[in-house]
């Protein structure tokens, strides 16, 4: 189970905002390797973030599979060039995917450079999330889900 709490979520968002600005990108998305959307910044309304997340994760998974077949650990960067918009995909902290969408206002070189810097910051946040995932001795935070009732679950489907 992957859990994101408010402070780390804000830090992820801030890092993405900065990256979007520094790289002059249209939009940036942070996606979990399993295809779940985590956070985004920029002109995000223009894109279907759920579909984007699922297809990007599929793309990365397939490319990872290819890498293993030829004996590479992974291809760390993918680049798709379109007529107008281009996509830069990279792996962050081995478990998340950073997707940058940009056009002629930016360049591959700039995006690559800024992604590198942002990745360092993002990795720090993921490390923090990992630390928080290990419960401290004696501190047991009650999960809001421990109280879910059968009625709650049934209600989901009756609507």
């Amino acid at each position, binding site marked *: *189970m992957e859990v994101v709490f408010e402070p780390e979520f804000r830090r992820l968002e801030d890092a993405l905002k900065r990256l979007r600005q520094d790289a002059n990108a249209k939009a940036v998305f942070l996606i979990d390797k*399993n295809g779940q959307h985590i956070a985004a910044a920029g002109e995000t309304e223009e894109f279907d973030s759920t*579909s984007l997340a*699922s*297809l990007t994760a599929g793309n990365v998974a397939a490319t990872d599979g290819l890498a293993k077949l030829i004996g590479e650990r992974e291809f760390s960067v993918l680049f798709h060039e379109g007529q107008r918009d281009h996509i830069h995909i990279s792996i962050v902290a081995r478990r998340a995917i950073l997707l940058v969408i940009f056009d002629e206002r930016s360049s591959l070189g700039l995006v690559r450079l800024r992604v590198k810097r942002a990745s360092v910051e993002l990795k720090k946040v993921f490390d923090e999330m990992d630390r928080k995932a290990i419960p401290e001795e004696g501190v047991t935070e009650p999960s*809001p889900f421990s109280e879910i009732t059968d009625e709650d679950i049934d209600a989901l489907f009756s609507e």
Partner: protein
Amino acid sequence: MTFINYAAKEINCKIVYYGPGLGGKTTNLQYIYNKTAPDRKGKMISLATEADRTLFFDFLPLDLGSIRGFTTRFHLYTVPGQVFYDASRKLILKGVDGVIFVADSQRERMEANVESIRNLESNLRDHGFDLKTVPSALQFNKRDLPNAMPVDEMYRMLNYKREPTFEAVAVQGVGVFDTLKAVAKQILVELRKR
């Protein structure tokens, strides 16, 4: 892998439809898509061959409403059932929270069903999951066909751990939502345990 975002107040879970080629996995998703209100679903993505066979996966994001203030989202995926797509099938299982096995009730497909369950078990194991403990349900699809095998006989061959089992005619929607609910419930109950 269940993904809980406390900032956005969202729970995201992944359910994978598994089973032999032409068993009706994609048909299950299409029915769910057609019967779900627009504000409760995202786009359905199908990466398919020219002949409408699943090539990589189908994907359908569903929003089931909220539970304890958290929006509950299920991401439904199908795998490509054809035997030679095994590498792709394995990729789709990554981070799975629940599995729906769609079996083809036609007698001549029993061997394919059995082989596909074994394949599921082994691919799950490669991801560190055990089919014995992963939330799952079994669907006997194509009950409308004259050559459908009797249910109890099928159950003896395919039941893995007394998982919830449903008869279905996916083209008509029979049994489709019941199967989905059974697995969604198990996933949410797991969440409660943690």
